[in-house]
């Protein structure tokens, strides 16, 4: 006959072991608490990505031209209030989604954006905003970052002023960029 007087101790030992394992699990998982500082790290990364893409677009491709692709897209044959939005979409998505060893298609990284052009309305002394392109509508639930690029473009903008007689204007391209 086996002596069974230690059963309660055995159960207590097993319970203690489980409690210790659970404690170790709690301690290890506590180091991955998602703090507010961590959310800003991805924001900073996204902001830098968008800024770099716009900056690349606003650089002339070679020394045969003095106009950057972004200046050409905004100029768009000089049509007032219109820009080459689809051309912007192609180049911008190409830049922000360009990753090693992957086919470039429509936003494989889940990056979405809404781009606008802000100009100074000389006649009314206000700023106006025109849509450039958006590959996804902003619904309000997103958490976008804003990236901007200054562009000098030879174009007429609403409100007239200097642009009407072919004079140069400085406008601000603003892009709301988010990941989902």
């Amino acid at each position, binding site marked *: 006959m086996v002596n069974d007087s230690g059963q309660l101790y055995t159960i207590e030992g097993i319970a203690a072991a489980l409690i210790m394992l659970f404690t170790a699990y709690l301690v290890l998982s506590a180091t991955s*608490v998602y703090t507010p500082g961590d959310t*800003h790290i991805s924001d900073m990364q996204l902001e830098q990505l968008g*800024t770099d893409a716009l900056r690349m677009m606003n650089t002339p491709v070679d020394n045969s031209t003095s106009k950057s692709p972004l200046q050409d897209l905004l100029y768009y044959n000089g049509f007032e209030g219109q820009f080459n939005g689809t051309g912007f979409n192609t180049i911008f998505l190409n830049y922000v989604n360009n990753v090693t060893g992957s086919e470039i298609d429509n936003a494989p990284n889940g990056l979405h954006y809404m781009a606008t052009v802000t100009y100074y309305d000389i006649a009314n002394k*206000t*700023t106006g905003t025109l849509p450039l392109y958006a590959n996804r509508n902003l619904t309000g639930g997103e958490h976008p970052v804003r990236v901007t690029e200054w562009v*000098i473009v030879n174009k007429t903008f609403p409100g007239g002023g200097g642009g009407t007689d072919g004079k*140069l204007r*400085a*406008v601000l391209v603003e892009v709301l960029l988010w990941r989902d």
Partner: protein
Amino acid sequence: MAGLNDDAQWIVLMGFVVSFSLFFLAMLLNQSTLVGQTTAEGVLDFPKNDIRDVKDVMIASSQYSSDPSKFAIIQEDITALALSRKGAVVTYTIISASPTDPHTHISIHYNNGVTEYNEYWTSL
């Protein structure tokens, strides 16, 4: 205290130790949610890209500074847009290249209320 049963003193003491350490751990966990808050805010608040962009467009506009009527419009655009869209006071003056001095000089001023930045830029 003669005759008082004091067998459980160790158990009571350990109970106190455990409860205080749990309290201490809860405080640590509570504080950890704020880790990096001020650091991230500081990095995000500093307008690094804004200053770079506005400096670039000022340098780009300097090639038109020989034509005052063109240049005044660009300068007005930059000042007005920086104030309304970036919340920053931006002013700059350009000293164009001349026969005696082949360099272009730009005096850059940027102030968004938190960060003030001044630079005197000289072309190569």
